């Protein structure tokens, strides 16, 4: 088990390293203008610019810059923001926004996990009956309709009928978070319901369920002890990863409700060529994503005895 964990951990580190390298190289293909604020660009003469770039090491050969970047990362030095907040450390630019996004994301994740799995279970218990079809219709609706349309529906319903505030406000975060969280959960509820139902129905049709029935297990016992437990194993793998998708989804939701989170920050930074901010955000997303998959695998290994614990590649 230990070996497997170490192996997966190393793979994750390599993955992150590759992402970091690619992002860095792509960013360096941009014109060096990004190093200056809009004002500086107007004022500085070409010689002045050259001098500044030289001083910052941006004219060094690429490999040298790359190695320097790795070094900075190891010291958790992510550089300074240029365009968004000139001269401010990237970490503090992202900091607050990260907290807001995480709060929304985590709440949405917990809600969708519970509601989604619950819907999936209800659908399985009522397979091919009306409740099952309603659940499927919901899943199809959420996936087929562009998310902005469903967000608008939530917004319209929430603000008109329930009287909830339609824009996020830092002064009243709990109440104004409700609609963004609902929107964030919509898609993941659908996918949890879909997968829960799918895996449970899969398990229900397996032979060992028949043997369990033959030996006299009650329907409830079969559902709890066999079906749900076994169906949860493949599901568990997606839980950490879906965390990332929930945050990723916030790109749109946060813009829609003007939540001052990471989503708008990323688009802002891209539009305004704030290289260090973009770089750091992408690395952050990559780390979260890789961590999600890594944790998913570890969780799966703990739950499923069939996954080889001896590290020789495993047989899955």
């Amino acid at each position, binding site marked *: 088990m230990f070996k497997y964990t170490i192996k997966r951990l190393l793979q994750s580190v390599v993955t992150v390293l590759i992402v970091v390298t690619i992002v860095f190289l792509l960013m360096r293909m941009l014109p060096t203008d990004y190093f200056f604020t809009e004002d500086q660009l107007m004022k500085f003469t070409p010689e002045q610019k050259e001098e500044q770039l030289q001083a910052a090491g941006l004219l060094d050969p690429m490999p040298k810059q790359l190695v320097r970047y790795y070094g900075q990362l190891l010291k958790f030095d992510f550089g300074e923001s240029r365009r968004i907040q000139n001269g401010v450390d990237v970490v503090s630019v992202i900091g607050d926004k990260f907290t807001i996004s995480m709060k929304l994301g985590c709440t949405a994740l917990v809600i969708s996990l519970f509601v989604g799995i619950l819907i999936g279970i209800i659908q399985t218990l009522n397979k091919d009956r009306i409740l099952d079809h309603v659940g499927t219709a919901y899943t199809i609706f959420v996936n087929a309709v562009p998310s902005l349309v469903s967000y608008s529906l939530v917004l319209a319903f929430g603000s008109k009928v329930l009287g909830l505030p339609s824009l996020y406000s830092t002064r009243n975060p709990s109440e104004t978070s409700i609609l963004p969280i609902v929107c964030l959960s919509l898609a993941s509820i659908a996918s949890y319901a879909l997968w829960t139902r799918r895996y449970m129905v899969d398990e229900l049709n*397996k*032979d*060992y369920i*028949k*043997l*369990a*029935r*033959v*030996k*006299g*297990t*009650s*329907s409830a*016992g079969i559902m709890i*002890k*066999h079906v749900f*437990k*076994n169906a949860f*194993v493949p599901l568990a793998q997606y839980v950490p990863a879906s965390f990332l998708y929930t945050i990723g989804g916030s790109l749109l939701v946060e813009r829609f409700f003007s939540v001052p989170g990471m989503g708008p920050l990323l688009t802002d930074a891209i539009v305004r060529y704030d290289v260090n901010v973009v770089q750091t955000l992408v690395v952050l997303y990559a780390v979260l994503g890789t961590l999600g998959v890594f944790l998913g695998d570890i969780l799966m290994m703990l*739950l*499923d*005895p*069939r996954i080889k614990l001896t590290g020789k590649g495993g047989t899955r």
Partner: protein
Amino acid sequence: MTKEPILSAKDVEIQFSLRGRKLTAIRRCSLDLYEGETLAIVGESGSGKSVFTKSFLGMLDSNGSITHGSIMYDGKDLAKYKKEKDWRTIRGKKISMVMQDPMTSLNPLKKVGKQIQESIELNQGIKGAEAKKMALEMLEKVGIPFPEKRYNQYPHEFSGGMRQRVVIAIAAACHPDILICDEPTTALDVTIQAQILNLIRDLQKELKMTVIYITHDLGVVANVADRVAVMYAGQIVEYGTVNEIFYDAWHPYTWALLSSLPQLGVKGEPLPTIEGTPPNLFNKIQGDAFAPRNKKALAIDFEEEPPFFEITPTHKAKTWYLDPRAPKIEQPEAIKRLRASMEGRG
């Protein structure tokens, strides 16, 4: 046989609804099962052997139901059982079943020992350490070495034969009266087959079980069974003791089945096969269901369903050949050869 049957199915009809159509899988089929015996049910795929026996413990798929007849067991009519709760008084404790494929019959995520223990806890009201002790005993009983260690292992750490032993342990853990073995060796290696059959036989003696084998392997039948029932298109067409079926069969389908035994083939001649296909069970069947595939069918075979004719008190066949009014029909060569070989052996 003067004994009272332990289980008696009468005129059982089982229908499945498939896309709005009714399929009659079992057509008024009767069967008596006597205590302590080993009965083999043989027949080709789709003849209804599994469906028929599954109905004894309410394991029909949800689109199937018993639409006629009765299954009397212990003074109760199982055909009337509808509720899960009723069936749970039967399953495991009274009637149990071993399924065909041991590779998929066990929950892959549960310790093997726990799965046996679960069966004991469910049906015998024993919990915890004592149930575990019984599970360990059961593991030993089905011939699994190092039960203590094996108890804590998962199904994927067992070979196919060993898994089938575990499945048998689960099915027999509550000492059922009747154990239904649905092709218990089909998925196994030939060398393992004999071991599993021996194991079932030993357990049967020890636990005083009545065993029903469902199989299409006549070799297995000859090895283990006391009595044989031959099924065709949802009906039992002939039944008798093993010797009566193997050496003095009378139903043309039994003949065809026996004639296609590889052991009976004549060197240089192609092995006989049964031509045609079984009837479509969506349609109503007129006369003898096997008639269209029987080259020597009588005219009446296409008109009217034959009743059972008694050959000996234990041997009956459902064919017009045995009617006194029928023209004299000889048993085919292969059957005669079989009998000769038996008489030769004395």
